[in-house]
């Protein structure tokens, strides 16, 4: 394959990814862009059928009155993120969620669950001080994405499905983005899509961990591309673990998938390998403590056990009675049964599982990045959640900021023109993508497993400097070996093994940054827990990490958090407001 084989394609607005961020960007760009603007949506899978927004179970956080306020939602977000969030971004998130939920109901056609009086039903996730989470049963993501997907499919945007973005191609002077290099996965051919504005919404996805929840298409491609393009990334050490991922062995893709949070809320018990309940040893709230606390409890318990046959702990629901379990969690019971487990009467083995990536590209509140023409929204963008994302704030974030990106691009595009790509970067990105095709074919999977084990062991739920350094060495090793693993190039059409290779390359690149940023943060905040630095390092002096590629190496620095809305120890809630509006369980 030669550089000249790259097909060239132009559009006005290009959107990468079709999660909440990508689909909302497409809709909003259509609403604000001048008549005749060409909008293209490119995605690694099928439109609306990949990514994590579709997998959202619990719901969507939005303050809709009944005592709850945007201020309260904001304070919960800041407290939850342990004062690391970018406060302007968090504020905009909470404020705009109110608009976005009305848009979802009134314009997009979602139909969320109602109270008997006809108002939206809202519930409280752990870490929230009000009943705030709007939902559709426990399949909220399907409702949101299906409705958005229909709208976008019917809107006539240009579709580039199963197009994988492999490189951001800047202009010669590097100040602006010229286009994105992609592989048309169905044919294996390359396509350079130039656009005046590009929104990246590829959704992060910490799938470099042995146990992980995100969909298979998410492999940190966006952040790896941003890194190579020289963009600053923040909070890269912040990986959220969900406490109860299914543990079903190495040989199944089911391993790591989420067993719903509600199981613990309803009284599900966690049982150690020794047959004991243990969560009360770690926290007064027991199994009902927040995700990070329970994840650490389980991890600590797992370390005590050296029986290789039984790695995780168990969740047991049977004491609630079979009828109750079946009635309250029909979806979970069926899912477990399909995979051969009995959630009703038996205990099911679980393990903490990497769920969400708080870190991401540094953006302003309009989703603009340091590179003209590039906008980033959703899980790819850093800042809104700080060190911990509240359950329900993820989909709020992707839909709110995806919409904002669409609005902003629609307005910006009029003043922009197509730019000439830097052909040397293009050549380098092309060479990088076809590199494995020039080597002797070998298996990719064992290396992926190796990276996943390493990240789980050394850069996982509980971290130490020594561990993360070991992790870094291991990542370097995997990266090196990967460069000797080739892919059979006899047929590049829908060649998943080639994409497995490219996935692993993105994961290695970002894993390294996670470990580096983790070493940099010598304190424990939210999802980042250092056994060697267990305290929070002083909230008033909060800093966040920023990583960027300088030459061939990644440099991590600390930057102070600007408390632009509220200072530690203070609140923006009116005086006399109760601490929580949620009735104790």
């Amino acid at each position, binding site marked *: 394959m030669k550089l000249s084989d790259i097909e060239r394609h132009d559009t006005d607005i290009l959107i990468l990814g079709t999660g909440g961020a990508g689909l909302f960007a497409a809709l909003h760009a259509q609403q604000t862009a001048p008549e005749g603007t060409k909008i293209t949506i490119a995605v690694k899978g099928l439109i609306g059928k990949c990514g994590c927004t579709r997998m959202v179970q619990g719901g969507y956080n939005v303050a809709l009155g009944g005592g709850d306020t945007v201020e309260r939602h904001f304070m919960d977000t800041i407290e939850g993120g342990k004062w690391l969030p970018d406060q302007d971004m968090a504020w905009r998130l909470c404020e705009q969620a109110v608009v976005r939920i009305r848009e979802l109901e009134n314009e997009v056609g979602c139909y969320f669950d109602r109270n008997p009086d006809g108002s939206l039903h809202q519930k409280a996730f752990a870490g929230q001080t009000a009943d705030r989470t709007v939902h559709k049963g426990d399949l909220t993501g399907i409702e949101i994405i299906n409705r958005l997907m229909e709208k976008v499919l019917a809107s006539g945007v240009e579709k580039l499905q199963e197009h994988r973005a492999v490189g951001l191609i800047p202009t010669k002077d590097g100040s602006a983005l010229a286009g994105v290099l992609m592989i048309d996965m169905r044919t294996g051919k390359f396509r350079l899509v130039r656009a005046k504005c590009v929104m990246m919404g590829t959704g992060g996805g910490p799938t470099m961990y042995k146990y992980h929840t995100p969909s298979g298409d998410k492999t940190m491609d966006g952040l790896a591309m941003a890194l190579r393009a020289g963009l600053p990334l923040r909070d890269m050490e912040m990986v959220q673990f969900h406490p109860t991922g299914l543990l079903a062995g190495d040989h199944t893709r089911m391993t790591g998938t989420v067993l719903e949070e509600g199981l613990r809320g309803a009284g599900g018990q966690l049982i150690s390998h020794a047959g004991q309940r243990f969560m009360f040893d770690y926290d007064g709230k027991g199994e009902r403590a927040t995700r990070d606390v329970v994840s650490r409890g389980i991890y600590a318990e797992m370390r005590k056990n050296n029986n290789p046959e039984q790695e995780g702990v168990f969740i047991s629901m049977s004491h609630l009675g079979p009828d109750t379990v079946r009635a309250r969690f029909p979806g979970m019971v069926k899912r477990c049964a399909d995979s051969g487990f009995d959630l009703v009467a038996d205990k099911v083995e679980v393990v903490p599982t990497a769920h969400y990536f708080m870190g991401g590209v540094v953006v302003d509140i309009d989703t603009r990045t340091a590179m003209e023409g590039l906008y980033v929204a959703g899980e790819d963008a850093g800042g809104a959640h700080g060190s911990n994302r509240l359950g329900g704030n993820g989909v709020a974030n992707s839909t709110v900021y995806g919409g904002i990106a669409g609005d902003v691009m629609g307005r910006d595009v009029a003043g922009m023109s197509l730019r000439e790509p830097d052909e040397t970067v293009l050549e380098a990105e092309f060479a990088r993508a076809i590199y494995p095709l020039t080597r002797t074919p070998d298996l990719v999977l064992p290396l992926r497993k190796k990276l996943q084990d390493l990240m789980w062991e050394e850069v996982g739920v509980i971290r130490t400097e020594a561990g993360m350094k070991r992790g870094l060495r291991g990542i370097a090793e995997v990266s090196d070996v990967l460069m000797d693993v080739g*892919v059979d190039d006899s047929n590049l059409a829908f060649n998943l093994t080639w994409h497995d290779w490219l996935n692993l390359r993105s994961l290695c690149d970002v894993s390294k940054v996670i470990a580096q940023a983790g070493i940099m943060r010598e304190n424990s905040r939210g999802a980042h827990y250092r056994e060697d630095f267990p305290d929070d390092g002083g909230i008033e002096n909060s800093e966040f990490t920023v990583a960027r590629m300088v030459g061939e190496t990644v440099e991590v620095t600390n930057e102070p958090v600007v408390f632009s809305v509220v200072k530690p120890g203070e609140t923006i809630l009116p005086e006399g407001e109760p601490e929580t509006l949620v009735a104790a369980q």
Partner: protein
Amino acid sequence: MTSETLNVTIDRGAAGLQDYAVPAYDNQTVLDVVSWVQQNADPTLSYRFACRVGMCGSCAMMVNGVPRWTCRTHISKVLDGNAVTIGPLRNLPVIKDLAVDMDPFFDKWVAAEGVHHGAMTRDDPIASLGDDHPEQSGADFGRECINCSICYAACDTVAGNPNYLGPAALQRAWNLLNDAKDEGRMAILEAVSGTGGCHNCHSMGSCTTYCPNELDPMSAIAGLKRETAKSFFKRGR
């Protein structure tokens, strides 16, 4: 545990049927079997999946002649002895091996007016729809559809009649017809009464039988037939 071997036959289109010996493990889904082949035996094998928990609807294939979501189908459920045959989903063009082009399915979804029609905006309050809105009861009918196309693959009418919109798209149309917030009634009735409309359905019920989410497109389509018949008499067409 791994002493047993599964005889897996995969339909690879032009390359014909190919046999693979796949080690059996506990907790193995059909998707895991297919993945094993690609990851260990034949790196050129193509298939599609994303969520791996039955939410995205992108992993459906024909398994022993039955359309199934492979990520949620335990292999023990489909083994015939220790053999299983896997092919691409029926009624859709094959891209390569086990990956099909789902565009026709979604084009029909849109053609059935399977998209919200409303005049309300983000500046309006959210509609109050509760127990006092019995007409909304059908608005939840089939909403959990994951557009996996299994019903579409199961339906013989789709196989014989390329214009037929198919069960999932029509179910969405019925869903919208019952949604008090939707204002597209006329457009929907029009869309489902055309040459590819609901009247082509023979109520053979394979859609309802094979839907992995236990949805019931057949009844939704019967609903559309009733509504269009009513409008037939009303408008005297």
